């Protein structure tokens, strides 16, 4: 039977954690953190801030994968730190490299500024607009939406997005074109395009049809690959492209 080292059997005793410090300009600092048998990356960051360096800035809230605020770049890949076990990513040598989410400005250390991300949701008309009721009144046209209808199923496919920004940080097109609306905003737009109760379809389709809209997507599908909720923004973007193609070809767009 081959001999295995203690590290291979039990994992490392300490983790070597390189953490981004600073804003856009900055550098990595290395911290030694005691390894535990059961430990998430967020546990590691919290330990560093409480035990070693209280000036470390990072963001979290729920710690159980519901809020989406603790996303960071862990060993080169955007992940929810609260749902990422160290043992899955640190390797036998126990190495971690933590950076803020890519494609976003840095507030400080591991906290990325989500403003451009949510501004693009607004630009893509990601807000539900009831038909006939712009002032918030009850719409006259009351829709019964069967849950099994095709459009409702299309809308349901992407509705669980919690806006964590993992897809946005993983998207090559955003890094090539900073104006690109990004997978999350376009996924939201596709959800609303399929909502039969919504009254802003023409404006929404116009908003996502520009140079920085759905047609910029190269279908590399990193968003779908990395989405922690297993949503498929790439399919949503393809849906928008398809809808715009036929609407334009058949003269359905005003």
């Amino acid at each position, binding site marked *: 039977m081959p001999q295995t080292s203690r590290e291979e059997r039990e994992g490392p005793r300490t983790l070597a954690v390189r953490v981004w410090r600073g804003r856009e300009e900055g550098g990595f600092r290395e911290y030694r953190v005691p390894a535990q048998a059961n430990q998430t990356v967020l546990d590691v960051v919290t330990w560093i801030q409480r035990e070693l360096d209280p000036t470390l800035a990072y963001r979290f809230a729920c710690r159980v994968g519901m809020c989406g605020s603790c996303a960071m770049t862990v060993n080169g890949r955007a992940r929810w730190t609260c749902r990422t076990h160290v043992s899955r990513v640190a390797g036998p040598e126990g190495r971690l490299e933590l950076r803020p989410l890519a494609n976003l400005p840095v507030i400080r250390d591991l906290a990325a500024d989500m403003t451009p991300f949510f501004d693009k949701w607004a630009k893509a008309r990601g807000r539900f607009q009831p038909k006939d009721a712009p002032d918030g009144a009850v719409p006259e046209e009351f829709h019964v939406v069967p849950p099994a209808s095709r459009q409702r199923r299309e809308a349901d496919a992407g509705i669980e997005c919690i806006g964590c920004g993992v897809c946005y940080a993983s998207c090559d097109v955003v890094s090539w074109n900073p104006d690109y609306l990004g997978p999350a905003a376009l996924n939201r737009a596709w959800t609303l395009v399929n909502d039969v109760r919504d009254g802003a379809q023409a404006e929404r389709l116009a908003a996502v049809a520009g140079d920085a809209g759905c047609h910029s997507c190269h*279908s590399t599908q990193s968003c779908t*690959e990395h989405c922690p909720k297993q949503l498929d923004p790439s*399919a949503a973007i393809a849906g928008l492209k398809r809808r715009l193609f036929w609407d334009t070809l058949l003269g359905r767009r005003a």
Partner: protein
Amino acid sequence: MRAQAPSPVGPAAPRRPGGLRARPHPTYLAFLVHRVSGLLLALFLPLHFWALSRAIEGEAALEGFLRWADTPLVKAGEWLLVVLLAAHLAGGLRVLALEFLGWRRRQKDMVAVTAGFALACGLLFLLNLL
């Protein structure tokens, strides 16, 4: 346990989505193959037209070119060209299917099919040579 005071190590790293290690998944590789094969084919096209132009300059010029094209190195280049064409064609059909048919599932299987098609075309070409 209290560790040593942290020391700065390493310069600023580019804040891109993390290099190839962040995206070694099949659909990204399919995108790369499609893009690179397209660029190489675009670069080849002027050469193709130049080769055709030999015919205008007379039979001897064309004959000389065709004899040169029979050398093993050029044949190997032709094989690469066939694979690039097949990969680009299959990759393009895959993207059209993805965008027009709205297939959500089995994207990775589609990538595998396109790769298989390109390799099969390459093999057929090699078998014809032997």
